[in-house]
């Protein structure tokens, strides 16, 4: 069955007009080089890095004409646009997709599988820094659909001044939940209107951090081959219970994510637990109002536990596969941006965690870079603990994250006990999973 007429017509008219607009300058130049169209996300963060990458790439690859499309605001708008472009046949050749949307990319068949391209490189590919765990981040059900470009993970942002006032050592924060919550509780008691800590349970980070808590005690989100979630046992109960303990012991206020961020920036909160990708944002907003530090994410199970990874992966879309020359150029660009030099630019201009470890060992690139940047170093030292950002299968994959957030809210605002909320959450998520 085809798509309904009217919309398709309108879309193709728009797409046609757009294509005409893009094509005109090209014809004027009579440029015969293949054009590689790239689109990235998070303009505010990534603009400087991509400008520099483009410059270098263009110098080294004069046979390709590289153009950027206007970058998207965030991962959600990025994938939405990509899905629309898939319908009109107007996808960019390379795009950067949030790791949480990789399953959608696979299910809609938007991307070119990279395994054959990687195999063609032979043994040199892994030697260039793309280690198997790194490759795994770009895989869905074993298919290599992307290579990770920028990677993030949870850290503890702390207000060192408040930590000291509460009798803690900002350089050595407790690495277990009991210790961190107790310290946060003391900070909350320093004066009225002071909050101990905050860890988002809604928005982009909410369900992501919940996965992190489950991983942290050695649990799993879903077991392979099962059609139900795996966090209905003791690990899930522990994770759900932690949210209530954050409120009761850690003096976490029940306020919206954005309000909590403002309060932390204003110096009225001890800890903010969130992704390292927020670092430059916090640094800019806080300035010298107080001493901002980062600490390790609490981990109760050091042996089996891990931390959840966020970030995005570079993907070659189906539209690049139409022309072998474009495909070859796209592959070169992919290797360049996810390789050591791309990693170097991202770390220097954006933050995040290095994806390509070779960059860390190269004195021309990042070796020594983190020595006097302790805030960045925290995340680098956690790299060994990364676990995948689990993507729920089926058509309701994204909605499930929203459902998880909703029940976490019920735990935090005490409208349900943690056990009851978890039971309801598990029931509803299982219903949304494909049978």
């Amino acid at each position, binding site marked *: 069955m085809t798509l309904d007429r009217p919309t398709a017509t309108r879309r193709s008219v728009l797409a046609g007009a757009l294509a005409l607009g893009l094509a005109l300058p090209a014809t004027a130049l009579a440029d015969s080089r293949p054009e590689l169209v790239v689109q990235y996300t998070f303009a505010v963060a990534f603009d400087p890095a991509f400008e520099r990458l483009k410059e270098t790439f263009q110098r080294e690859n004069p046979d390709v004409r590289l153009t950027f499309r206007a970058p998207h605001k965030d991962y*959600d708008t990025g994938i939405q646009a990509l*899905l629309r472009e898939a*319908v009109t046949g107007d996808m960019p050749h390379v795009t950067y997709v949030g790791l949480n949307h990789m399953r959608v990319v696979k299910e*809609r068949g938007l991307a070119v599988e990279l395994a054959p391209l990687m195999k063609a490189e032979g043994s040199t590919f892994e030697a260039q820094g793309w280690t198997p765990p790194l490759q795994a981040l770009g895989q869905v059900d074993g298919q290599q659909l992307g290579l990770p470009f920028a990677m993030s993970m949870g850290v503890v942002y702390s207000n060192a001044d408040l930590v000291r006032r509460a009798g803690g050592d900002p350089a050595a924060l407790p690495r277990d939940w009991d210790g961190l919550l107790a310290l946060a509780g003391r900070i909350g008691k320093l004066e009225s209107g002071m909050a101990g800590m905050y860890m988002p349970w809604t928005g982009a980070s909410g369900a992501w951090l919940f996965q992190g808590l489950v991983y942290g005690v050695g649990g799993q989100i879903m077991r392979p081959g099962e059609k139900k979630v795996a966090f209905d046992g003791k690990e899930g109960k522990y994770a759900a219970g932690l949210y209530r303990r954050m409120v009761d012991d850690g003096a976490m206020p029940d306020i919206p994510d954005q*309000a909590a961020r403002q309060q932390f920036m204003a110096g009225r909160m001890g800890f903010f637990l969130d992704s390292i990708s927020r670092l430059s944002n916090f640094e800019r907003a806080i300035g010298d109002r107080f001493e901002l530090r980062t600490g390790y994410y609490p981990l109760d199970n050091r042996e089996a536990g891990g931390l959840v990874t966020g970030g995005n992966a570079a993907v070659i879309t189906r539209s690049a596969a139409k022309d072998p020359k474009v495909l070859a150029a796209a592959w070169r660009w992919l290797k360049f941006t996810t390789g050591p030099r791309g990693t170097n630019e991202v770390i220097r201009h954006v933050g995040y965690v290095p994806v390509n470890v070779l960059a860390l060992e190269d004195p021309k690139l990042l070796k020594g870079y983190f020595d006097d940047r302790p805030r960045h170093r925290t995340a680098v030292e956690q790299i060994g603990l990364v676990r995948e950002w689990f993507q729920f299968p089926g058509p*309701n994959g*994204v*909605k499930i994250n929203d459902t998880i957030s909703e029940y976490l*809210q019920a735990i935090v*605002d005490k409208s349900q006990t943690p056990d009851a909320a978890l039971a309801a959450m598990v029931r509803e998520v299982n219903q949304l999973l494909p049978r």
Partner: protein
Amino acid sequence: MKRPSTAGVGLLFAAPAMFGLFLFVIGPTLAVAVMSLTDWQLGASEIGFVGLDNYRALPGDRVFRTALANTLVYAGLVTPISVALGLGLALLIEASPLGRGFFRAAFFLPVVTTTVAMAVVWEFVLHPSLGPANLMLRALGFAPANFLGDAGSVLATLAAIGVWENAGFNMVLFLAGLKAIPRELYQAAAVDGADRAWERFWTITFPLLGPTMLFVAVIALLRSFKVFEIVAAITQGGPRRASEVLLFTIYQEGFSFFRIGHAAALTMVFLCGLLVLALFQIRLLGRRVHYA
């Protein structure tokens, strides 16, 4: 001159507009109606016909029921208050020439500002611990309130912001209505002994404002049903879906969850609701036309 050719020319003149109407209004509406009968997911290459399944699932859908109830409560709060407030402001401004231009502009300002930008401002004003609203509450000896973060108060808070946004719009409509009332009627009433403010309002202003009132009431109702930006910008439907409203649900289902079929069914239900309201308006207004 021959009649048919006039009609032909008329049609010719109307054709571009008709074409646009079909292309941008009727066509997409039909497309949404068709989509609502499918299980299409955004970007999917397959599409399956599922009949009325999407509609049948709605009554049992907890999110839809919550969104519908919230939208009705929101409209029920915002419509009467913003209409009454708009009327009050218009009467006050009309009553005195002093600072008329200033007050008119001041109260109309919320209408012309960008809702999303204002949402950020409101978010700060209502911040649970740093916001001026709570600093004031605390200074007056009250407990601080978690306006936007508490499931019990978030909808009322959004409604208050909605009133602030819409009252100025209603005020301008009422000002226009007031201008249309002939001065002589007031003079005649004064001669008849009805010259106190309340008597003048009740015997002349209010009845003559009837058609304006109805128009404003229905427009205000439709506008309040369309609440979206502020929810998308501040609360995202939370906490615990306490501020989930229909337009936001449609947006989220369609563009965040990619469930186009379901979102299209929601859109059709929403559209039909608004259509019923519009028909209601035309019938009531029609009865009043002779009055004006």
